[in-house]
């Protein structure tokens, strides 16, 4: 998965800007793909895209901000760099809140753009490895029996074996065995580690601490 070469996806309805961005991006050795509308991108983009999105804020039809929302909704996690002709503050704030990496104003200087792209790609790389890790944890978690999951939930809440045994109406020995299985299956090295794992699983969007 990490071998996938990142792609800079460019969505802009203006052909001049689209071609210029594509030209500039490819001149830095990056791979670029262009789409004239947000709808085209939503329809044609790869399943699990790696890279980042260069997006015109104001486009007829589905606007850049709308697209950002749709992507979040569809579970497509591409960092977004917005490009605008006139960056008004409310739009900027909305975009940044929705998770935009950068908000650039035209004409974009190449250094600015490249910095933003590199930052976005780094963010995407981290997010992707994070998502991979969470997915791995999920696989491990799925191997737990319902009982083990119950025990794990109480363990990470900080309850002692005795308390758990009381709560689940089991012997302390049984709880200890379940706990050992959980630690083993989850590849947790310590209680702290398990707590972190549980945290990651319950909150998959947030980056690792």
């Amino acid at each position, binding site marked *: 998965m990490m071998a996938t070469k990142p792609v800079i996806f460019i969505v802009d309805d*203006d052909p*001049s*800007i689209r*071609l*210029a*961005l594509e*030209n*500039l991006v*490819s*001149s*830095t050795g990056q791979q670029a793909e262009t789409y004239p509308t947000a709808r085209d991108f939503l329809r044609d983009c790869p399943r699990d895209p790696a890279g980042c999105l260069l997006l015109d804020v*104001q*486009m*007829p*039809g589905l*606007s850049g901000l709308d697209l950002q929302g749709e992507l979040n909704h569809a579970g497509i996690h591409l960092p977004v760099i917005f490009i605008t*002709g*006139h960056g008004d503050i409310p739009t900027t704030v909305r975009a940044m809140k929705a998770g935009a990496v950068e908000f650039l104003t*035209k*004409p*974009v*200087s*190449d250094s600015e*753009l490249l910095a933003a792209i590199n930052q976005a790609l780094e963010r995407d790389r981290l997010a992707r490895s994070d998502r991979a890790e969470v997915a791995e944890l999920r696989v491990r978690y799925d191997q737990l029996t319902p009982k083990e999951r119950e025990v794990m939930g109480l363990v990470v809440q900080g309850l002692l074996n005795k308390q758990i045994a009381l709560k689940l109406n089991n012997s302390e020995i049984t709880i200890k065995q379940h706990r050992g299985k959980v630690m083993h299956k989850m590849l947790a090295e310590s209680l702290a580690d398990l707590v972190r794992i549980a945290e990651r699983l319950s909150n998959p969007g947030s980056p690792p601490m």
Partner: protein
Amino acid sequence: MFGTEMSIESQHARAAMPESEEHYRAVAEAATDAIITIDSDSTILIVNPATERIFGYSTEEMIGQPLTMLMPEYLRHLHKGGITRYLETGRKHIQWSAAQLPGLHKTGNEIPLEISFAEFTRDGRRFFTGIARDISARKRLQDKQARLARHAVLHAEVSAAISESEKSLRAMLQICAAAVVRHLDAAFARIWLLNEEQKVLELEASAGLYTHLDGEHARIPLGSFKIGMIAAEQKPHLTNSVQLDDRVSHKDWARQEGMISFAGYPLLVEGRTVGVIAMFARQCLELDTIEAFESVAPVIAQGVARKRTLDTLRETQAELAHLTRVMTVGELTASIAHEINQPLAAIVMNGNAALRWLALDPPNLAKARNSAELIIRDGDRASQVIARIRALLKKSPPLKTLLDLNEFVNEVVDLTRSEMVRNNVRWRVEFADDLPGVPGDRIQLQQVLLNLIVNAVEAMLTIEDRQRALLIATDIFDNTCVRVAVTDNGPGIDPQTADHLFDAFTTTKPDGMGMGLAISLSIIKAHGGRLWTEPNNKYGAIFQFTLPIVANEL
């Protein structure tokens, strides 16, 4: 002189032949037509008293003389040849009954005659008798009728010329001058208009012998020479003998060119002189001709006044149209800036890309060239936007060209595109295929559509509960027009405003001047079209205009 034994060849004449010489003489003497008898050498033998009256000679002066003395010079040769041939071959060279030929009066003037001939033989000699009727009066009446008919045509042509609003004032006057030459038999006719500031009459039209507008008579000071006097005194000047007229200054020229008469009339509008119309002719001017000339002068004067008012009105309208156009474009500043900024941004980015392609080792020349080509294309695009805006802002004279309506709509939509994006208006165009081209002033019509779109976008700004939607559609309307309709889903038109929506100074915008629709309406009217509004189905309004399809474009 008439012998009773004289025999007349004609059966008809024989039947009416008087019994006595006295009786016959009485008839000849009482006749109002000239009766002349000649021999085969064309020597005059007998004339009656009417002959003296018609030709001006006494009987003694005519008897024994050749008949050709009573003919204009140019007919004499013909007569001789004709009679000789007739005597030899019996072939007549003219009709013998009621032939219309000119005779020659003693004074040298020609007399229109209607002549009938008869031939008789006596003692083996052939004689001819001619009866000549003076038809001057009839001829004069006919001529007058023909003149009056031409005067009516003159009047009609002048009236048509002055109501033609598309032509320039000068072109209009030239048509009038030419009509005077053609229908009043003027040698030439000229029209001057008064330049009130400089107190000078300026030659505007010249038809006939002279057609130039420069030279000696191009500028005549008010009060000087005959033309300047006519203007200053506001009185016509007429003469049928230019040689004797004090005011005609170039007498040598007049003699040389055979000018006989002159007529000049002031062109007056409500008591003020606007110019002078004058003509020279190579014949005397009949009273009815002068009357005709006199009657066209006020028509032309009114035409000048009307044309000037119209021109002023047009100028004012054009000024106002320009002003509202500038204001409309002003409302689009942000959008226009965006339209120019886009290609400029692309240029900068392509320039940066080009530098990078060149900095590679080895440089990627193909990509660098591609970048340069993109830069050129974007530069062209930016300058096209600027050219379009400049055309809108420029004060340009109206210019009608054949417009492809769909292409025209696209151009305007391009200009308002980012205005619509910015205001979150979703727009759509629906074009009818195969629309015929319509003649129109591109800039003016752009102004109208621009105004309708900007209004529609502004009307929809209050809408928050539904998608703002704009439809711009073209189609054929009533088979005779093409139509452009702009449909919005805004709040619609308040019925109170609807009644005077197209009046000047009606506005619903806080900083609007209220001229947009009024100007738009006048532009569409000037194109022979209609501009009106209807409520849209559920929300909003439809503003639409039509332009007539020119017949030969169908």
